[in-house]
């Protein structure tokens, strides 16, 4: 029941939203239910500290046969950050998303995403994970195109087709894996792979298919093209939600999959993961520096930042996994906040083209500072969360003997700083070019809830930098569990 509630809360909202017609009541209910979800996720943290891995067997069928929901420390941390971001974006959307969209089910589909994301973080079963992915994707397909503007439709066709293909890879891999091992439960599969150690090559086709499926979802190097082509088309509140949650689910699954399965064949997979991470890091940041659209720059940076998490996964030591988890959390917070600031700029000026914008700092220093915090946290400046994230990644890389990789990460950080400074100068600092100043009606409606969300995220980023030690400690405990799959197996299947 404790885990099941995180699926039940969004589901209840979905059912209620179908019955209610008034946009105002839908909005209030959305805030209420996202608060409930946040409170529930917070309550899970002490429980997981005490019980270490929470396992719930759905329908009372015992583990390898029924569907299990599993939440270890890593899952719970992800659930908590998701709930926090989701709550703030819901508050933000009440003022940022226009009324027509809200009336046509904006919140309905964001809750669909929440349900899918919560489900994927808790899935203890490979096919169940696929189903939650689809729940999440289906809602996101609709959110990308909701509103039906031309560029939204273009973006959503690309997004939809590439993500469908990734699902096909994933499900074909599941089919082959089931054919070879005869199970779908993650713990059971991991145990069976341990037994089949001598013949792992037989499983490689299935594992590669699943790996490619996750990589497309996570937007890793050769598979990232759908992301920058679609993330800047929907309303800013939607792209903030996508940037904060969707690719991170792919990364979460990749980490789970690597620590349970792929590490048995580490000689092969470690190199693959390391190089894919390194290339995403470099290509993402270089592509970003040539862009002149606020949200496109941030979209390319998602690819680059995902690379940091993936190289840390490739180092595969306790310190490196700690760094990966810490960096993932930091990235979710900072990236979402950067998108929220972009949403405010879009609301004030009606465009996000850097060449046309200017003088935004004079317009509102508070928003300027909020952008400063999130951007320089992404770039990794000292008192903010990004500094500790990068520091942990670099340190673990050098300790694990990958000095070259660590230097590459440092070099990429320089480029990140370059793009962030570019946005800062072009949007907030320079004078608005007079000839290109377009007519945009001054928005009279209040934006205080938007500011509230962004302030809360900014505070979270600073807090994560100030209290980095306790958070890193928690991440370390999570990393220890990840490195010890026999513990996961024992909790899910029961002591053997």
């Amino acid at each position, binding site marked *: 029941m404790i885990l099941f509630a995180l699926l039940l809360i969004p589901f209840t909202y979905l059912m209620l939203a179908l019955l209610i017609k008034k946009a105002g009541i839908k909005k209030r209910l959305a805030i209420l239910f996202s608060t409930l979800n946040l409170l529930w996720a917070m309550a899970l943290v002490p429980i997981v500290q005490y019980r270490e891995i929470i396992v719930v067997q759905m329908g009372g069928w015992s583990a390898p046969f029924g569907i299990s929901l599993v939440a270890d420390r890593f899952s719970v941390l992800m659930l908590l950050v998701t709930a926090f971001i989701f709550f703030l974006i819901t508050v933000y959307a009440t003022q940022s998303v226009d009324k027509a969209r809200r009336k046509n089910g904006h919140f309905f589909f964001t809750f669909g995403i929440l349900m899918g994301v919560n489900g994927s973080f808790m899935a203890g079963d490979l096919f169940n994970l696929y189903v939650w992915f689809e729940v999440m994707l289906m809602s996101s397909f609709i959110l990308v*195109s909701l509103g039906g503007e031309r560029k939204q439709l*273009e*973006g959503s*066709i690309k997004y939809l*087709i590439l993500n469908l293909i990734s699902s096909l890879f994933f*499900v074909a891999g*599941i089919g082959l894996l089931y*054919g070879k091992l005869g199970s779908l439960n993650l713990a059971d599969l991991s145990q069976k792979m341990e037994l089949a150690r001598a013949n792992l090559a037989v499983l490689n086709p299935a594992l590669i298919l699943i790996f490619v499926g996750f990589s497309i979802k996570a937007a890793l190097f050769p598979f990232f093209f759908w992301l*920058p082509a679609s993330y800047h088309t929907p309303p800013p509140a939607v792209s903030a939600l996508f940037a904060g949650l969707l690719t991170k689910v792919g990364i979460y699954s990749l980490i789970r999959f690597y620590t349970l399965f792929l590490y048995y064949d580490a000689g092969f997979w470690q190199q693959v993961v390391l190089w894919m991470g390194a290339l995403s890091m470099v290509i993402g940041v270089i592509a970003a520096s040539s*862009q002149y659209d606020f949200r496109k720059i941030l979209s390319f940076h998602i690819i680059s930042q995902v690379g940091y998490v993936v190289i840390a996964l490739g180092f595969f030591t306790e310190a490196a996994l700690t760094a990966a988890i810490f960096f993932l959390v930091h990235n979710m917070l900072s990236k979402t906040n950067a998108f929220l600031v972009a949403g405010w700029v879009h609301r004030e000026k009606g465009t996000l083209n850097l060449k046309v914008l200017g003088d935004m700092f004079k317009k509102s220093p508070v928003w300027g500072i909020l952008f400063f915090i999130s951007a320089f946290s992404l770039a990794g400046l000292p008192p903010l969360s990004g500094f500790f994230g990068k520091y942990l990644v670099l340190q673990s890389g050098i300790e694990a003997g990958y000095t070259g990789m660590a230097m590459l990460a440092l070099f990429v950080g320089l480029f990140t700083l370059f793009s962030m400074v570019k946005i800062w100068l072009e949007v907030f600092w320079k004078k608005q070019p007079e000839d290109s100043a377009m007519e945009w009606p001054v928005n009279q409606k209040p934006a205080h809830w938007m500011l509230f969300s962004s302030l809360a995220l900014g505070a979270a980023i600073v807090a994560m930098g100030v209290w980095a030690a306790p958070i890193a400690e928690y991440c370390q405990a999570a990393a220890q569990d990840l490195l010890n799959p026999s513990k996961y197996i024992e909790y899910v299947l029961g002591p053997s």
Partner: protein
Amino acid sequence: MEYIIAIFIGLLYACGVYLVLRRSIVKVILGVFVLSNATNLIIFLSGGITRGGAAFIPEGAETVDPATISDPLPQALILTAIVISLGISAYILALKYRYFDVTGTHDLDQLKNTDQR
């Protein structure tokens, strides 16, 4: 029987990939449908094909020879996958229709407005 189905799946994949690489959006969508059916057949095949074997254990039997009964799980998985792809197919066709309404084109090359330049 497995060989025939395996070759057939290969053919379906080839057709699907060919269609996905076409320029017309409708053909790309059809290609995705073909690919998803090929994938469903992979799951079907992976469970092993037993001719005439029901998925039941006879009453009172203590042990059953696995070669004589078929595995019901892959078919349950396919059922789920088919339902999901049905929903997505309906949505993607509606999206294509709307796109054609707005732009009046079927050409994928016209989609590059939102791309990086």
